[in-house]
């Protein structure tokens, strides 16, 4: 009798957590490999428009980013609410774009230069005046390949 009793009386065995670190490390490595760090801290509002005739922008190392939009709330006191350009981590003027493009070109290997693309990340509420000024500067700098970065969706969602 006592033999059977002994078996039954055992409590629920604790689940071993010894393999937990392994599982977590596995996840960790996945995210480490998949991570792309945000390159720029945005100082402007950047709500992208919708479009559906889009192409993928592969090869991130060949893309330089130009942001435009009105300054986000905490910069509004200093910079006002008029839409502005952001290059790298600071507000810039239209005339800085050429130098920015030349600096980007300088940092790339020579054989890659013809493939450089400029991605324009422009807020939906920006006026075309500013965008055309940017485009004009890009033409002067001969950075002719551009990409208007958008979100994917019907254009009807833009309004």
């Amino acid at each position, binding site marked *: 009798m006592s033999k059977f009793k002994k078996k039954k009386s055992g409590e629920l065995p604790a689940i071993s*957590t010894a393999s*937990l*670190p392994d599982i*977590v*490390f596995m*996840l*960790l490595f996945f*995210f*480490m490999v*998949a*991570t*792309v*760090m*945000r390159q720029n801290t945005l100082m402007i509002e950047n709500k992208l*428009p*919708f*479009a*559906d*005739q*889009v*192409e*993928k*922008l*592969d090869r*991130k190392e060949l*893309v330089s980013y130009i942001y435009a939009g009105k300054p986000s709330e905490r910069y509004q006191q200093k910079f006002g609410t008029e839409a502005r350009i952001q290059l790298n981590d600071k507000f810039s003027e239209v005339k800085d774009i050429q130098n920015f493009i030349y600096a980007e070109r300088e940092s790339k290997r020579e054989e890659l230069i013809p493939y450089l*693309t400029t*991605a*324009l990340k*422009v*807020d*939906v*509420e*920006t*006026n*075309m*005046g500013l*965008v*055309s000024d940017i*485009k004009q500067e*890009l*033409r*002067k700098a*001969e950075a*002719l*390949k*551009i*990409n*208007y*970065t*958008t979100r*994917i969706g019907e*254009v*009807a969602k*833009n*309004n």
Partner: protein
Amino acid sequence: MAKRSAPEVNAGSMADIAFLLLIFFLVTTTIETDRGISRKLPPIQDENVVPPVIKQKNIFTVIVDRNNRLLVEDEIMELANLRKAAIAFLDNGGGVGEDGCTYCQGAKDPAASDNPKKAIISLVNDRKTEYRTYISVQNELVAAYNELRDRESQRLFGMDYLDMEAKYNDPNFRGNKDKLETQLNQVKEMYPQLLSEAEPKSS
């Protein structure tokens, strides 16, 4: 001296450290790649070059005013109808003889474009136009070209133009790339993207 056994390092906190790192990478991760409408800007023209004369009927003017309203060929139009109107214009094929277009399926209206190879879409913005409207218009015009190219590549090669392009850009594609390129160029030549943007007007 008495020989001591080395004390074992406690690995119990390893999971905590790993969790900390994991959460950091989870927060900073952005997996998706950017997508957008690709365009090529025209190089700056020499001012002495005289622009070629283009027949008025071969130009499709789209004007977007400061209140984001569309004026297409001097008529007010909703954005939803723009794609259709652009297709009708490009695919018109009203030319005769040398200017004719054998593959067009349009209305052959003598007052609209002669041939898709000559048809130019001219987009004029105001400086006050909102970017969202500009992108919507761009998107619709690109869509019009893509739709026509799709139709022709479907007819000639039984494949969608965009699929062909995706295959062409895919580095892992095993098929015949040269053949694909000539096919792509053939379709591109039938409906070249002639989209001209004027300097925006300020009013």
